[in-house]
């Protein structure tokens, strides 16, 4: 279970998060929607302390921390309960696919190498990369890199995986393979918070949809509620725009 209470974050004078509260139940898939600059990435980055929020509280499972007063130790334990999938994959360039998945298991978790290797192989198999164990990131397509990144996140068995626009950097023909892997992950019952513009993914997979704008959550609900009868004007405008742009039918 993840709970964010009243998260606030400014960059200089720019108030990016103005008190965001979010509840994610175990096994739930939450999709965050919102226009560019609304603070979606910042929210995810605050949840695993890649960004230090100015105020607010975070609970992950039995661990509660105040954003402002988190110690190094607490930050590390938050990070060991979360995993992140980045827009630009961010695979370790000095490691092959297998080593990318093993790194967190061995170095952060202290799992023996042989055991970590088996886990890593299993996770790579699950994302359809059983023939790419030894491949360097530069030898993989964007879709393959992102699938390695998802395997890397899943292998850590975190309480939540944060996805920040995992398909936005991909060529259109590679989006499908990554979304398919994400559907599998969701089906396994792994808790996910996903920032995405993929509306069909959101409406199929999400248990809960959150619409952010201007650093606050404007509206949230089930996919059905948000997509078919949004209450707020801003939500409606955003959906109209995005559905037009991406030419989706839901």
């Amino acid at each position, binding site marked *: 279970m993840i709970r964010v209470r009243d998260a606030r974050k400014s960059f200089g004078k720019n108030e990016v998060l103005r008190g965001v509260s979010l509840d994610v139940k175990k096994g739930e898939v939450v999709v965050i929607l919102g226009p560019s600059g609304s603070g979606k990435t910042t929210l995810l980055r605050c949840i695993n302390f890649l960004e230090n929020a100015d105020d607010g509280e975070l609970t992950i499972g039995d661990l509660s921390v105040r954003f402002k007063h988190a110690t190094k130790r607490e930050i590390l334990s938050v990070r060991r309960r979360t995993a992140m999938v980045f827009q630009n994959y*961010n695979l370790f360039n000095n490691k092959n696919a297998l080593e990318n998945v093993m*790194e967190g298991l061995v170095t952060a978790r202290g799992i023996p190498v042989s055991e970590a290797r088996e886990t890593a192989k299993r996770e790579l198999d699950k994302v359809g990369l059983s023939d790419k164990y030894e491949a360097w990131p530069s030898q993989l397509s964007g879709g393959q890199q992102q699938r390695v990144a998802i395997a890397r996140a899943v292998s850590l068995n975190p309480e939540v995986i944060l996805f920040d626009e995992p398909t936005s950097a991909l060529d259109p023909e590679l989006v499908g393979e990554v979304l398919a892997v994400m559907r599998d992950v969701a089906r396994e019952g792994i808790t996910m918070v996903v920032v995405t513009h993929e509306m069909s993914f959101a409406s199929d997979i999400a248990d809960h949809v959150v619409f952010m704008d201007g650093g606050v959550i404007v509206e949230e609900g089930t996919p059905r509620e948000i997509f078919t009868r949004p209450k707020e004007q801003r939500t409606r405008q955003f959906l109209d725009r995005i559905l037009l742009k991406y030419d989706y039918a839901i």
Partner: protein
Amino acid sequence: MGKLFDIALVFEYMPAIFSRVSVTLLIVSVSVVGGTLLGFLLAAVRLYRMPLLNGAAVFYISFVRGTPVIIQMFIVYYALPILLSQVDININRWNKLYFVLISYALNNAAFMAEIIRSAIASVPVGQTEAAHSVGLSGFQALRRIVLPQAFCTAFPAFGTRVVGALQDTSLAFTLGILDMLGQAQAIGVRTYHVLEGYVAVALFFIAASLLLEKGFAWAGKKLLPNAG
């Protein structure tokens, strides 16, 4: 006096001149090893923007890179004894070679610091963030992810600097160090055949530089098969 230039003498002088190669190699080794260690410290000061020290490091690096090494050597040779005499340390009887080693190490530190700093800075911040996201501590991220990648970036520039350091050693003779160039000069004074000795030294530098360059290129391929 005979011919102005006698090619046979080049080879005749070679054994005497090359017998001093150890001095040259000593200067190169100390300046590269010492310079790299100091360079790491300077790079850390710059990267972590340590207050006060950062400004000093910036000044030091631009001073060293902006002035000829021979001037730095003279400064160390003449100023260091005065400076240390203030704290009652007398180094006037030191072997001149020590001054040379110190100057070259200090000189290389500035170059190495920039090579190290820019290599580390060139590793995308996303690499560190990904490392943190899988639970690595700051130190683990540096050791496991950032430094190995920075090493790949720095390696060619490092090789170039080692070759540069080798050629810089040729100024040591101005303090009266009897390295290869000093020896060539001594022979020249004795025999009035100046040119032949210098040609022998030049041949050494060409060969050694080529060897180093090829060596670094080869090692680069061996060490960094997946670079890029």
